[in-house]
C-alpha cells in the first residue's frame, strides 16, 4: 500500500498494511531543524528600529506573506516526508502586522477574524505566534470589524484555495496533505470578542451571539469549499471545545448554538465525497457523542495532559469515529527516551488500531517537539504497527 491507500483505508475503519502515521509539523523551529535550514529572524528585525518599518511593510504585503506561509508548509511537508510520515496537516492563515504599545515587540499580528496574535522567537530566530486577546470586545466593535474587513474575508478564502491547491499539486504524489480549515466556527466566534465577554453575551445578548455564529458558519463553509477545491481527500476542522479539565461550555449549549453549523460542515464535506476530521484540545469526553451525531468522521488530538485516553475514547465511540493522535507532547516527544516513545506507540496501537480507524500522531505541535523523537515514533509505528494487530 502507498501512503494514500494506507491512510484512506484506516479512515474507512478497515485494516491497511500498517497503522498510518500523520505529522503535525508546522512550527518553523521544527521545519528548520529537520531540513537544516536557517531561520529568518523577523522578530529580531522588527526589534531593530532601522529595519522595523521595512520589515513590517514587507510582511504586510500579500504576495510576501503568501510566499512565506507557503515556504513554511512546503518545508513542513518536506520534513514530514523525510521523517517517513504518510500525511501532514496544512493550514493557511492570514494576518497583518499592526503597531501595539502593549506588546513587548511593539507590533502584533491582527488576523482577519479580529484576533491579536503575539509574536516571539527562539534563540535561533524561529518565529512563533500565539493568540493572546480579542479586538472586538463589544457588539458594536464586532459589527464594525466584519463590515470593514469584508474584502479581507474574500482574500482569505481566495488565498487559502491557492495555498492548498499548490501544496496538493506539488506534494500529493509523495505525501497526503490534510487540508485544515482553521480556525473553526466556535473559536472564530469567541476569540475575537474574548471568552469572558463572549460568555456574558451568550447569556445577555443571545440574538447577537446567534448572528455571530451565523456569520462565521457561512464564512467557514466558504473556506471549506476553497480547501476542498485543492483536491485534499481528508479535511480537518478545528475548534478547541475543551480545556484541561472539561468542556469550555456546557455541551448542550454548544449543541444549541453550534450544532446546526457543525452538521452543515460535515454535510458539505460529505457532499464533496471527502472525510471530515475535527480537532479539539482539552478534555472532551462529553462531546464525543455529539461529534458522532454531527456527522464527523474522525477526531484528532486527544490531549493526554487533559486526561484523554485512547482506550476510553475507543470504548465510548467504538468505530463511529476515526481516532488520530494522543502521543504526548509535554514530555514524551520533547525529552522522552527511545524506550518511552516505543512503549507509547505500542500502547496507542494496542488501544485503538484494531480493525483500522486509527492514525498514529503526536497530540499536537509546538516548537519544542523534538524531531528525533518524531523519528523514533515513526520507526516504532513501522515496527509495531503491522496488521493484523493482536488484542
Amino acid at each position, binding site marked *: 500500500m502507498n501512503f494514500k491507500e494506507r491512510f484512506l483505508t484506516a479512515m474507512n475503519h478497515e485494516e491497511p498494511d500498517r497503522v498510518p502515521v500523520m505529522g503535525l509539523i508546522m512550527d518553523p523551529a521544527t521545519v528548520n531543524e529537520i531540513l537544516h535550514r536557517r531561520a529568518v529572524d523577523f522578530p529580531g528585525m522588527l526589534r531593530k528600529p532601522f529595519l522595523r518599518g521595512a520589515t513590517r511593510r514587507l510582511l504586510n504585503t500579500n504576495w510576501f506573506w503568501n510566499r512565506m506561509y507557503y515556504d513554511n508548509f512546503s518545508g513542513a511537508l518536506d520534513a514530514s516526508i523525510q521523517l517517513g510520515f504518510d500525511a501532514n496537516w496544512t493550514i493557511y492563515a492570514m494576518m497583518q502586522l499592526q503597531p501595539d504599545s502593549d506588546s513587548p515587540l511593539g507590533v502584533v499580528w491582527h488576523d482577519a477574524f479580529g484576533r491579536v496574535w503575539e509574536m516571539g522567537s527562539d534563540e535561533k530566530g524561529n518565529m512563533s505566534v500565539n493568540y493572546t486577546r480579542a479586538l472586538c470586545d463589544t457588539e458594536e466593535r464586532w459589527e464594525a470589524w466584519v463590515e470593514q474587513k469584508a474584502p479581507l474575508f474574500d482574500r482569505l478564502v481566495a488565498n487559502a484555495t491557492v495555498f492548498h491547491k499548490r501544496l496538493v499539486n506539488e506534494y500529493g504524489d509523495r505525501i497526503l496533505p490534510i487540508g485544515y480549515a482553521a480556525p473553526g466556527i466556535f473559536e472564530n466566534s469567541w476569540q475575537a470578542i474574548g471568552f469572558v465577554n463572549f460568555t456574558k453575551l451568550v447569556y445577555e445578548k443571545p440574538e447577537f451571539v446567534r448572528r455571530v455564529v451565523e456569520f462565521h458558519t457561512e464564512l467557514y463553509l466558504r473556506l471549506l469549499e476553497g480547501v476542498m477545491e485543492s483536491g485534499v481527500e481528508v479535511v480537518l476542522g478545528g475548534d478547541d471545545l475543551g480545556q484541561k479539565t472539561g468542556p469550555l461550555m456546557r455541551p448542550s*449549549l454548544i449543541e444549541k448554538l453550534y450544532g446546526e453549523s457543525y452538521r452543515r460542515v460535515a454535510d458539505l464535506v460529505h457532499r464533496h465525497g471527502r472525510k471530515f476530521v475535527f480537532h479539539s484540545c482539552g478534555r472532551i469526553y462529553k462531546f464525543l457523542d455529539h461529534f458522532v451525531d454531527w456527522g464527523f468522521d474522525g477526531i484528532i488530538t486527544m490531549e493526554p495532559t487533559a486526561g484523554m485516553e485512547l482506550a476510553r475514547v475507543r470504548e465510548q465511540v467504538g468505530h463511529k469515529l476515526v481516532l488520530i493522535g494522543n502521543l504526548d507532547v509535554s514530555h514524551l516527544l520533547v525529552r522522552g527516551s527511545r524506550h518511552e516513545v516505543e512503549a507509547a506507540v505500542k500502547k496507542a496501537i494496542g488501544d485503538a488500531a484494531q480493525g483500522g480507524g486509527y492514525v498514529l500522531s503526536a497530540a499536537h505541535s509546538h516548537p519544542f517537539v523534538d524531531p528525533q523523537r518524531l523519528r523514533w515514533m515513526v520507526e516504532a509505528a513501522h515496527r509495531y504497527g503491522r496488521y493484523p494487530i493482536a488484542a
Partner: protein
Amino acid sequence: MDELLEKLRSSLLELDKEATLEAVRAVLQQGSDHAEAGVEAVTDALDQVGRRFQDGDWFLGELVYSGEIAKEAMELLSPHLSAGADKRLGTVVVGTVQGDMHDLGKNIFITYARSAGFDIVDLGTDVTLEQFAKAVLEHQPLALGMSCLLTVSAGAVGRVIEELDRRGVREPVKVIVGGAALTEEFAREVGADAFAPDAVTGTGIIRAWSQG
C-alpha cells in the same frame, strides 16, 4: 432577610444577573449592616459553583459568568461593609510568566480568590523574573501564583522559583502554578508547592494555606 439572602444565592446559581443584583439591592435596602450577610451569600453561592464545576456538572462558561455576576454584586456590597467586617485571608501575588500573554485562567482565579477573601496583586501577563521577585519582596504575600499556557514559556516558572531562592525569599511564600502548559509532575520538578488544574482548586488550595 433570610428569604432575601436565599433569593440572592439562588439567583446567582441560576445565572440570573438582574435577579441577583436586584436581590443585593433589596438586602442593602434593609440596612447597610446587612452587607456582610450579602457578601457571605455571594461567597456561599460561589462555593457551590466551584463544587458543581469540580464535580463536572458545570463548565468553564458557567464558572466565568457566575464569577462576573459575583463581581458586580460585590461592587454593590463592598462600600457598605463596616471596617473589620471584611475578613481578609491574605495577599496573593499573581501573574502570567514571561513570554506568555494569556490571562483568561489567571483572571478567573483572581475573581474566585478575591471573592473568597484574598487581596490580589495582579502583575498581568509577560511578567519577568525581576517583577515577580520585586512583588514578593514588596508585598510579602501568603502565596505567589504563576500561570502559563504556552509550553515554550513553561521554563520561566522554574526560573522564577530559583530567583526567589537566590534572593532568600522562597521559604516564606507558597508557590502555586497552573495553566494548560503545566502538569502536577512539572510543578513538582520545578519546586512549586502546588499545582492547580483549575481556578476553583487553586482557590481551595490557597484557602487551606491561609488557615495554616
